[in-house]
């Protein structure tokens, strides 16, 4: 966000990390994955007859260290229930969850986990600074460096100037930023964010995207949930599409982008069409004056076209994503109600 400040001092996620000058924590023994979820099941009882309502059923996935893993699903698909089970806020009926190698029911498993809830709501009687001090105590952060750490995270989310205002006087977007700040406090190795763009204006959304990319670059593992396809498409390395409480499909960024198509906007070279390079004639572009639109059905073709444009000294004005692979995949999952 504004005045970005690097929180981590060591990019290696297994090394000792700290935001407090002179203070280091012993490194945890390395584990293969940041999070492992196996057959997670959770139902709810409702009404006088205690009828069982489906929450999630047999959800399994693994989040690799240093990646952004997204849970994508429509409202009510089971994303928040999954996250609540991961953090032991809800007791799963069945299944196993490990966070950074520890069982999720052990409070110490959450020491290196930051969490942003879907609708962050904090104590209105506190100021932003007091709130972060409170959370710092709950995270057992050393008091000596806590103020420095708070100043750092507040600056990172662009809330440094509003830190002494009572929370009841902050806007929804500012509360969301503060929510992100409290999630970043304690230098977490794993961030769990439920709808992190919720309540933010376009600038704020861009800031959060940049922040998440920066955190990934620093080695932080991020699990985020959203029902907004473009946000996930721009950020996620791996996506799990959740439908009716089950993981309907898991796919990597490469799989998603391979299913997308593009239009390259460029300018035609000098001379008539018969004087164009062979590759351009084969591509059969649409022409409007000097402007050309060249279709690329997949990323491999897009790469070739861009290289050819460069080789032919044609300036590329823009590349338009014509059909997003993830959106198609998501819609197909919704329509078929299961795996695709």
């Amino acid at each position, binding site marked *: 966000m504004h005045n970005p400040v690097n929180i981590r001092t060591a990019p290696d996620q297994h090394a000792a990390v700290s935001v407090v000058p002179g203070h280091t924590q012993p490194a945890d023994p390395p584990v293969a994955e940041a999070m492992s979820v196996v057959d997670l099941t959770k139902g709810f009882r409702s009404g006088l007859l205690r009828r069982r309502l489906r929450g999630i059923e047999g959800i399994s996935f693994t989040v690799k260290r240093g990646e952004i893993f997204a849970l994508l699903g429509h409202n009510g698909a089971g994303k928040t229930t999954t996250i*609540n089970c991961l953090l032991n*806020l809800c007791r799963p009926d069945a299944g196993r969850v490990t966070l950074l190698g520890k069982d999720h029911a052990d409070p110490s498993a*959450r020491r290196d*986990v930051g969490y942003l*809830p879907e609708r962050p*709501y904090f104590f209105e009687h506190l100021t932003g600074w007091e709130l972060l001090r409170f959370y710092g105590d709950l995270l*057992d952060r050393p008091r000596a460096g806590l103020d420095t750490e708070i100043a750092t995270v507040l600056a990172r989310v662009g809330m440094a100037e509003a830190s002494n205002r009572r929370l009841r006087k902050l806007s929804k977007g500012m509360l969301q930023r503060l929510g992100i700040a409290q999630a970043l406090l304690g230098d977490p190795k794993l961030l769990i964010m439920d709808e992190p763009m919720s309540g933010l204006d376009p600038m704020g959304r861009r800031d959060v995207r940049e922040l998440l990319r920066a955190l990934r670059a620093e080695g932080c593992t991020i699990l985020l949930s959203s029902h907004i396809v473009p946000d996930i498409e721009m950020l996620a390395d791996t996506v799990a599409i959740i439908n009716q409480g089950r993981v309907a499909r898991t796919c990597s960024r490469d799989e998603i982008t391979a299913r997308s198509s593009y239009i390259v906007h460029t300018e035609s070279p000098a001379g008539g069409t018969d004087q164009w390079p062979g590759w351009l004639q084969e591509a059969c572009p649409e022409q409007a004056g000097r402007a050309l639109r060249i279709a690329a059905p997949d990323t491999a073709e897009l790469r070739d076209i861009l290289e050819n444009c460069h080789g032919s000294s044609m300036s590329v004005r823009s590349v338009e994503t014509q059909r997003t692979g993830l959106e198609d995949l998501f819609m197909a999952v919704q329509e078929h109600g299961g795996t695709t």
Partner: protein
Amino acid sequence: MNPRHILALAHNTYRETVRDRIFYLVAVFGFVMLASTAVLSPLTVGAQAKIMTDVGLAAMVVFGLLVVVFVGSSMVRKEMEKGTIVTILAKPVGRREYLFGKFLGLNMTLTAMLAVMAILFAVMLLFAPGEFSPRFLSAVYLAFLELTLINAVAVFFSTCVSSVLAAVFTLGAFVVGHLSQALREFGRLQSGPLQERLADAVYYLVPNLEVFNVRGAVVHGDPVTAGHLMWATVYGVGWSLILLILAGGVFARKELR
């Protein structure tokens, strides 16, 4: 149990009640005391200090009870409904730590309230005609123990039922707690064994709050023995711990969504 977590939660709860202007109740207490002195003085020739002691000690318990009922009963439920609890329990904080921290925080508020009220009360007694009895400190201490126990009752109910029901049950426990001894004696006077057993059950299931009521002794100059203070301390702390352990058991199974 991590003491730093508990203290942070307690301090936050205390700060919340203070910033929610709970101490206006103390101002009301002062006003009630002054008003009662002005009204009762002409009616109580030679017994003004006794009446003030009685009214003052009763007012302390009643105002403390109001704080417990209105703040304590909704303390946990409010955080569950608003969602402030999820960011706390997503940190490495145990549920029992959370509950104990909230309980301790409200007790800090009660302590501060009682301290201010006791000072105000003592100053007024010093200026009133008649004898100032230092025994009132014992009564204040027992009022604190009683409110601590009622606080634990409120925390217990706030983990089980809605805020409104928790307030009603807490108030009910206060009333029955003061009547349980009388109920037991009344049950023994009945001919049927069923009534006697029922009265006994109420007596043992609900804390006997008359243990903490020494207003009569203080007003009439009777001694409050160290043995009674000791017994009341063990009784109050014991009941509070039992209720907090039960509340912790219920809260550990609570679904937060």
